[in-house]
């Protein structure tokens, strides 16, 4: 299966979905004009990837400095897809990465964590030195 790589723009994050390493990365800012359209290929890729249903660890690393409400909804849909895969035997871990001084990212991460039912959702702090 081909990997999906999307370069970051001013209003959309960089996306790297790697079928071999099973590491999925979303990083940057997310306020695309049409969030559903921007993330459609990500959602499609995820569906196809998870159809293979190999019971091996999948890790999603998310580092979003800013995201709009439409992006939040898409993220929740993505988490639901992962949650269902987890329930069917593919262990999934989501790492919500936030800068130590970004209180907003912490609070938003906590909300996502609450919404998720089964997958492992980790809050991962980083500082300036680790960028």
């Amino acid at each position, binding site marked *: 299966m081909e990997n999906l790589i999307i370069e970051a723009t001013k209003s959309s994050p960089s996306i790297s979905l790697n079928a071999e390493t099973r590491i999925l990365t979303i990083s940057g800012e997310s306020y695309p004009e049409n969030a559903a359209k921007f993330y459609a290929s990500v959602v499609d890729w995820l569906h196809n990837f998870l159809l293979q249903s190999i019971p091996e660890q999948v890790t999603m690393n998310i580092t979003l400095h*800013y995201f709009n*409400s439409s992006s*939040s*909804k898409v993220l*929740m849909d993505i988490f*639901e897809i992962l949650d269902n895969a987890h329930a069917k035997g593919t262990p999934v871990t989501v790492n919500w990465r936030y800068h130590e001084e970004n*209180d*907003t990212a912490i*609070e*938003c991460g906590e*909300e*996502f964590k*609450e*919404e998720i039912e089964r997958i492992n959702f980790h809050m991962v702090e980083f500082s300036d030195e680790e960028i």
Partner: protein
Amino acid sequence: MSLSDLFKKEYKIIRESKELLEREVFSDEKSAKHYKNLLGHNQKLFSQLRHLVKISDIQQNDLNHLNQQLIRLSQLDSLTGVPNRRRFEEELNREWRRHQRLGMPLSLIMIDIDHFKQYNDCYGHTAGDECLRKVAQTLSVAVNRAADFVARFGREEFICVLPQTEYQGALTVGKRLIDMIRLLNIPHKASGVADHVSISIGIATSAAPTSDHTIQEVLGAADRCLYDAKASGRNCLESVLL
């Protein structure tokens, strides 16, 4: 308002739907399953909505906070920390309209640091910046009534708005400003006026803002007085009552 209050109706609908399912009102198993499935989707959607609202609130609070910070910073002079000229103009227009309504006197004091260019040439720009900071802070302290207002007007120019202040009152404040800058005792060997940093002042008082002059004319009058003070040897004040 808590989220449970905000979504009172939705909670009720979900509760009633569950009760309906438990009461087994459906005629066949297929309908019941279909209904249960729909209810599950609704519950999920509702849960997402609640969290989306909270996330949105968190972000909006954050943006609002940043916006206020930005407004505050955009109104301050970054070097001296006193209000900048933009803020001064807003404040002056507001005060002028208020004084027109009240029919009260309003005074303006324009302040210029004497031979500041020479100060910079003699002591360097870092010392010049420090001098501006000290003068700005001293002026802010000297003009100390709650409604009084000091702003940076130009490179080495400051301006005070003295609401509800008559001509004599403005003169007293002007003299105090000159004294306080003198007491700062910042050495200025290139001055030629004094051996310390000094200021020149132009004062204009509008006795009755309801009369036919504009705020621009009061500002212009204060500027001309400042020019006169500089022409008559600096480290002094000139004033006019309009």
